[in-house]
């Protein structure tokens, strides 16, 4: 403290003496008095404050105008809002206000940096969670879903049961296999108070519904959970999917259920295709300082022995290495050798390198004239990393019912399907009634 300050008496002080009754305005007045008293001494600090705050505001405002807009955020996997069109109609309806708000939020300079800063601040406050992602031990990031929608689950399972029954009547074996979410399987990495309470509950409900519907299913949560308990990396730390190792364990169970013998783990050669995969959970979490996951491809023989044809009217793979487009029955198909679209390894969404991401219809066949059974897989994206294993035994048709809406009963009859596998993860089963479409055509068959 400098001397001039000490010599001035009396020094007004912002803190009232004890026992003194003071009002809000009294306190404010004291503070102002103090401030005016320290006017000269505090000028430097005041100027610094104004410089820093207004400086920050104006620099960001100018950068917002000057920096070019980006159209897409790979982090969030969504298109960003761009400059709104200004019109009287837009303004008076109030739409413009919202559009400007979205535009600013989406195109704010150093957006990613700020998102990370917020996540850091939440971490420092020991909040244990950010944007719905729980920070688990050992770097595991897990999307939190306390109690998912039971009714949606029931709708989906009812439809699956009806479809299974109809398939059995057609003498087409139909296996249902349900995969756990990361919070179901890797709960040992979750905070212990959170644990597996909700998982156990919803899987209990799933079991009840399956029993009452007469749906026979293969539970892939429990075997993977015990693998996770043993410390095996069956799910990615930064993504919601299972790893290729996890998918292998799933495949081994599924094969036994389909009546075949799975290949031994040792029979595959493992290629580390990537060591810098940051998944979707990581994007949501804002935790910029997390370690990435590796992605492994498991090879058995030559992948080139297989042909993958993806129905894709948007021709999004045009120009990709090894991709040719073919027209069959008036529809465009992207045709690849093998199961991988390695271009995705250079992008944010590296999991999409398995089968090129989500599509409604994908067909996988083995070259040559080996006589093989055709397995129809009704699936979500968890199936993608299992396909390279299943393809060693079957020709595959993969249908994602979220994008491909048609009667599957009819589809099986028209495409000489020998077996059906419904492979779904708990999240898909509880998120939307995607399986309802399985009922299409079932009643008509019975003449109802």
């Amino acid at each position, binding site marked *: 403290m*400098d001397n001039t300050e000490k010599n001035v008496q009396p020094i007004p002080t912002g803190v009232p003496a004890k026992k003194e009754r003071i009002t809000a305005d009294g*306190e404010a007045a004291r503070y102002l008095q103090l401030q005016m008293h320290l006017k000269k001494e505090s*000028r430097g600090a005041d100027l610094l404050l104004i410089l820093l705050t207004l400086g920050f505001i104006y620099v*960001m405002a100018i950068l917002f105008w000057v920096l070019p807009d980006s159209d897409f955020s790979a982090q969030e996997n969504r298109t960003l809002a761009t400059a709104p069109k200004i019109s009287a109609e837009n303004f008076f309806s109030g739409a413009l206000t919202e559009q400007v708000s979205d535009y600013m939020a989406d195109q704010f300079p150093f957006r990613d940096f700020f998102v990370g800063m917020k996540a850091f601040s939440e971490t420092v406050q020991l909040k244990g969670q950010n944007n719905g992602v729980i920070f688990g031990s050992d770097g595991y990031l897990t999307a939190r879903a306390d109690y998912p929608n039971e009714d949606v689950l029931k709708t989906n399972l009812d439809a699956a049961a009806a479809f299974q029954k109809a398939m059995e009547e057609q003498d087409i074996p139909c296996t249902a296999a349900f995969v756990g979410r990361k919070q179901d399987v890797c709960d040992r990495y979750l905070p212990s108070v*959170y644990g597996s309470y909700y998982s156990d509950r919803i899987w209990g409900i799933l079991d009840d519904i399956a029993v009452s519907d007469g749906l026979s299913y293969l539970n892939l949560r429990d075997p993977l959970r015990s693998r996770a308990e043993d410390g095996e990396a069956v799910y990615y730390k930064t993504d919601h999917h299972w790893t290729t190792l996890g998918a292998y364990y799933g495949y081994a169970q599924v094969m036994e259920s389909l009546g075949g013998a799975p290949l031994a783990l040792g029979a595959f050669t493992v290629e580390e295709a990537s060591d810098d995969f940051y998944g979707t959970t990581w994007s949501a979490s804002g935790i910029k300082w997390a370690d990435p996951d590796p992605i492994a491809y498991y090879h058995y023989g030559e992948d080139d022995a297989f042909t993958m044809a993806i129905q894709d009217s948007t021709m999004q793979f045009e120009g990709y290495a090894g991709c040719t487009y073919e027209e069959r029955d008036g529809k465009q198909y992207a045709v690849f050798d093998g199961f991988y679209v390695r271009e995705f390894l250079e992008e944010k969404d590296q999991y999409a390198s398995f089968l090129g991401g989500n599509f409604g219809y994908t067909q996988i066949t083995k070259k040559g004239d080996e006589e093989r059974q055709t397995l129809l897989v009704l699936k979500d994206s968890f199936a993608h990393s299992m396909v390279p294993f299943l393809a060693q035994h079957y020709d595959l048709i993969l249908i994602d019912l979220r994008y491909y809406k048609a009667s599957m009963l009819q589809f099986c009859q028209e495409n000489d399907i020998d077996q059906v596998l419904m492979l779904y993860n708990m999240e898909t089963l509880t998120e939307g009634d995607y399986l309802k479409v399985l009922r299409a055509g079932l009643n008509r068959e019975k003449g109802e």
Partner: protein
Amino acid sequence: MVFSSLEFLFLYFAASIMIYFIVPLAFRNVVLLIVSLAFYGWGEPIYVTIMLLSIIVDYICGYFAGKYREIHKKKARRFVIASAVINLGILGFFKYYTFIVSNLQLLPFDFLQKIPLLADIELPIGISFYTFQTMSYTIDIYRGDAKVQKNIASFGAYVTLFPQLIAGPIVRYQDVDDQLRSRPHNIELFASGMRTFICGMGKKILLANCAGAMWEGFRALNATDATVVGAWLGMLFYAFQIYFDFSGYSDMAIGLGKMLGFQFKENFFYPYVSKSITEFWRRWHISMGTWFREYVYIPLGGNRCSKLKNYRNIVIVWLLTGFWHGASWNFVLWGIYYCIFLVMEKLFLQKVLQRLPGFVSHIYTLVVVLFGWWLFVFEDLGAGITYLGYMFGQGVVAFSEAGAAFDLLRSALFLVILCIASTPLPKRLFYKLYEKGKGARVAISAGCAAMLVLCTAYLVDSSYNPFLYFRF
């Protein structure tokens, strides 16, 4: 537009403050009027006309009330009544029409059923605040507490003044009368305003929004996941949310006002440290309490009349206070609820409380306030009763389970922060530091700037920025 938004900080504030300080002193009220209209019109492009109407009405009524108050008291009075009728009419129509009609239609008279419900009237933002402000002008003139403002731009600037336009504090005309004519603009005041603004922003964004996000989670509790712990935790977070939301917003308004040279009165004074409900209401939303005291309670006779009349006055004020908070029965009940405690304290409870140890009366106050917020937050009384059931173990799945336990654990530090931030401690600490010397003051400046950056980070991160007081 709310203060706690990117477009406010980096578009509106950046532009307005620059224009304001570039133009010469003589034009600053005009600039203030224009930028404030832009502020309001941006969010309410159509309803801005209602505000203009309210301005013109009180400009005229105030003018004549001032002209006649010495020579023809009755005539002057008519203008006060005209102002009150028009302002309350506007407020009544936009805020209460649907509520009143839908309740009248519960009565078994056919003609009532024919009244159109007009259910799609939207509440113009801030209408409860600016109608009260314009009325106070005419009344102050009539009472001789303020001088007539002949310059309509200056009067318009008072009403539309963007810092307090949307959520108060309710500034009485007599408090800013002189400031409208001349006010200081200097570095100290601007810096002080910036500190207050950033402090308010921190309260709103870092505390209220985060507490609000927790509350929203618990509010959605239902038969499949309700727990006692969760329900209590939820109410607790709501109590913190509403305090930090509202007081943070008031601080931002006061800070912005200071930057522009205005001294607004404080609106909150650590209400959660109160040791009685009477004290709580001296510390909570002070500008609203003052308004009702000055323009309703005292004109009715206040406490300078018979005991019975005094209690009647208290009841009227609290019914109105409750109803002012929203057109719904729960707000009326909320007003009555507080009225009961205030009357009880006046009768005997206050004396009892004073004899009890401080922490007991403090706990009493907090419990009463907490259940007050329960009444306040559930407009649907049925949902409120279900939630109250959860708090006392009715219809819950367990006393506590994984989610509630985890939330309790992970918000432990945050709750401590919220508690400390509700007390005068941080401000005392700030004063101590501020007096300490140059180094400390430089550190405060750097800290404020860092807080601004952190608030920006929260705003960028999240579109979660609901503003609670919009329905006022």
